[in-house]
């Protein structure tokens, strides 16, 4: 990103103006000594400051209309008297000096950093005047510029970043640098006013609630940069001020197998790259559709309830995660012509497999993240330490499978197969045998130790 080149050379003029005047003065003196131009320039008395053409009556005070009144003309005025900071050195030449240099002069009244771990640059260099006007200012705290603009005068990259960001951190009123950063010194890096995540949770209470009640925490919140691992508090082009596209953000860490207290997590990046048929939310790059990155009371940080086991007595409440997007009646209606393509005529095959005492969880047959078959049908079904082939084949109006659970059975939405086979009756749900392990173990993206 190009950096804002705010700094201009014109400001240097303040420094060399004096030199310029001296040079001009010198030139006048040369001119005075020249016979050809031996006329004294009007209004200049040699060797005397122009302001001292008339004696200055110091009893009048410094703040008179003709003298230093403009210095204290703004709304916010530094309250000390002039002599609290300035000493009269020579009345004849009206020479005043500061009692002491900055910052000692300031620390005579204001606190100074003592054991602070992190000190803001201007303070570290002892130059309070970088930010504050010692006399008066239209801005509170005698600052030179209002609000964030003041900070941007040095932090130029931030001004550009904030102006480019489509997603801002709160409203303009809320987004004040000083809400999160101390301007003088702090014990937290980046002068944060408190440690993360507590700093963020002061405003984001709802996230605090989630973290507090989570039985399955997300390590990203407690390691490295914590909240800033995922979010860019200065704004971004992504929803929720994510620092990058959500899926990239997740895969930045989930790009290798991980051992956690809650089980092993596979290398999701490779898995998704090698398996082109993705679950809808993943197609959208939206991992947070199913996982709560701030913590959860469900395994795998799932945002809603989902059965942990392979077999479960059916209860729609246990599938709340799926109902976030899918229609619940998908497994509630025994007959349908519209709810699902997985039907044999009007017989709802999802109902048959799930809505029963020994109901299967969705991931018995579907890959939750990505697979190679249509509808993310699994190649192999993990069953304990084993896995068996699903042998799913899709046809124009239906499909078939031949897993370890039952012999090869087919379904067709247009020309239904009686009981899955021509010429035979559809078996009652109870007649479907329990899964039988077959074939070799398989490396699933998430090791489903709970699939027992």
């Amino acid at each position, binding site marked *: 990103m190009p950096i804002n080149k705010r700094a201009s050379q014109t400001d240097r003029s303040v420094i060399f103006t004096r030199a310029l005047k001296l040079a001009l003065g010198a030139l006048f003196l040369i001119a005075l000594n020249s016979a050809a131009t031996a006329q004294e320039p009007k209004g200049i008395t040699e060797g005397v400051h122009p302001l001292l053409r008339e004696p200055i009556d110091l009893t009048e005070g410094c703040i008179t209309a003709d003298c230093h009144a403009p210095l204290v003309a703004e709304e916010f005025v530094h309250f000390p008297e002039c002599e609290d900071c300035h000493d009269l050195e020579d009345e004849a030449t009206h020479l005043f000096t500061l009692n002491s240099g900055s910052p000692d002069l300031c620390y005579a009244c204001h606190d100074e950093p003592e054991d602070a771990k992190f000190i803001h640059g201007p303070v570290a260099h002892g130059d309070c005047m970088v930010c504050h006007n010692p006399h008066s200012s239209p801005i509170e705290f005698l600052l030179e510029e209002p609000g964030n603009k003041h900070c941007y005068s040095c932090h130029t990259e931030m001004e550009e970043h904030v102006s480019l960001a489509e997603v801002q951190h709160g409203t303009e009123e809320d987004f004040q640098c000083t809400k999160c950063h101390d301007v003088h010194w702090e014990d937290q890096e980046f002068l944060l006013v408190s440690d993360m995540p507590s700093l963020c949770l002061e405003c984001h209470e709802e996230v605090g609630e989630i973290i507090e009640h989570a039985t399955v925490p997300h390590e990203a919140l407690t390691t490295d940069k914590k909240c800033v691992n995922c979010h860019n508090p200065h704004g971004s082009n992504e929803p929720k001020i994510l620092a990058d596209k959500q899926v990239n953000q997740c895969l930045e860490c989930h790009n290798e197998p991980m051992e956690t207290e809650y089980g092993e997590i596979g290398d999701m990046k*490779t898995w998704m790259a090698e398996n082109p048929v993705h679950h809808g939310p993943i197609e959208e790059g939206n991992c947070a559709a199913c996982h709560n990155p701030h913590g959860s009371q469900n395994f795998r940080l799932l945002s809603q309830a989902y059965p942990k086991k392979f077999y479960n007595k059916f209860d729609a409440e246990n599938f709340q995660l799926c109902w976030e997007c899918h229609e619940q009646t998908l497994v509630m209606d025994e007959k349908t012509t519209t709810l699902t393509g997985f039907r044999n005529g009007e017989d709802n095959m999802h109902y048959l497999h799930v809505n029963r005492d020994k109901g299967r969880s969705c991931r018995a047959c579907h890959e939750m993240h990505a697979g190679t078959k249509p509808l993310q049908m699994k190649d192999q079904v993990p069953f304990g330490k084993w896995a068996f082939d699903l042998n799913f084949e899709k046809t124009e109006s239906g499909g078939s499978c031949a897993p370890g659970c039952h012999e090869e059975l087919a379904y067709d939405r247009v020309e239904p197969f009686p009981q899955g086979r021509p010429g035979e009756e559809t078996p009652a749900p109870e007649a479907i045998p329990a899964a039988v392990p077959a074939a070799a173990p398989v490396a699933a993206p998430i090791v489903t130790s709970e699939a027992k």
Partner: protein
Amino acid sequence: MKSLQGLQAFLVGGFIWTALLINPQRTFAIYNMKVGDPMPEFNLPKAEEPSERFNSKELIGKPSAVIFWRPGQEFSLEALRELETVIKEIGTDKVNTVSVDVSRSSNEELHSVFKDGPLSYPVLLDPERALYGKVGVIVAPTTLMFDAKGILRFVAPSFPGQYKRVALARFRFLLGEIDQDEMERRISPAVLKIEHEQALAWRRYNLGRKLEENGKATDAMGLYELAISDYPQLVQAQCSLGFLKLAQGELQPAAAFFETALGYQPAFSEANLGKAAVLVRLDRFDEAKTILLKLKEENPVAIRAYYELGRLYQAQGQTGKALEAYEAALAKLYPETPAEDENKNR
């Protein structure tokens, strides 16, 4: 070998993600329609007044959106709200929109959704899921977007965080307000990243300038040196160091900083000015004059360029020309203030 495989996986993954993000042909969220199909005909009752019906033909003639949703589902409700803001932003007269409640919710449930205000677009009822089935909806919400001729152009399943951004960009594309490239750029804007080394260098340089203005040249010099150690291409810091060295009378180090800056940016005015200033002090007047005459009309370096020209003429004994140059410098420095008055309040 392992790193090669990693790179391979990265490239394949990156390609798939990019392709998926921008490819409008995705129809994984519906199983009975695909992009390019005509809008299915329907004639559904309105939730507000079930005796009134809405016919699909009413959507033709403008780009349109049909959102399938159900009450009691947070993603659906958020999608409805965001679609409402999208339509208002686009202009309600420019597009046609309907929502289709595919639940079997009671009237109370349905009306509770709109207790804070009705939508600007009709809510249709599809309790038998006739349209739902024709489309082959898999998830709710699902948003279909059709062009003015009623051809399916985009399918947006569920409610990802970028729902509003995507819907806005697609509508604007269908309205012909933006081309496909711009639509894709809006859907997937570049990731904003700060180059930290550059940023740190700029901060140090900016602080250095303020310290220099406050008379702390030594501190400023330290910061400029740190800045160029982080980011040597920061020609402003190179030049600031050059001018400070020049002020200390160290002509060779000053020249080196200006030359380094010119190596990065040959046309950088401040570096050329610094070089000329060094040349003036080395009595290489002709070279200096050539540079300064070019710079004297170039803001913001013109002030100092005139000043250096003044020095040059003064050193050559051309007092009149020197005086003119100094006055020109002052006139540029204080364009509306007489030179005498600016001493006040200092």
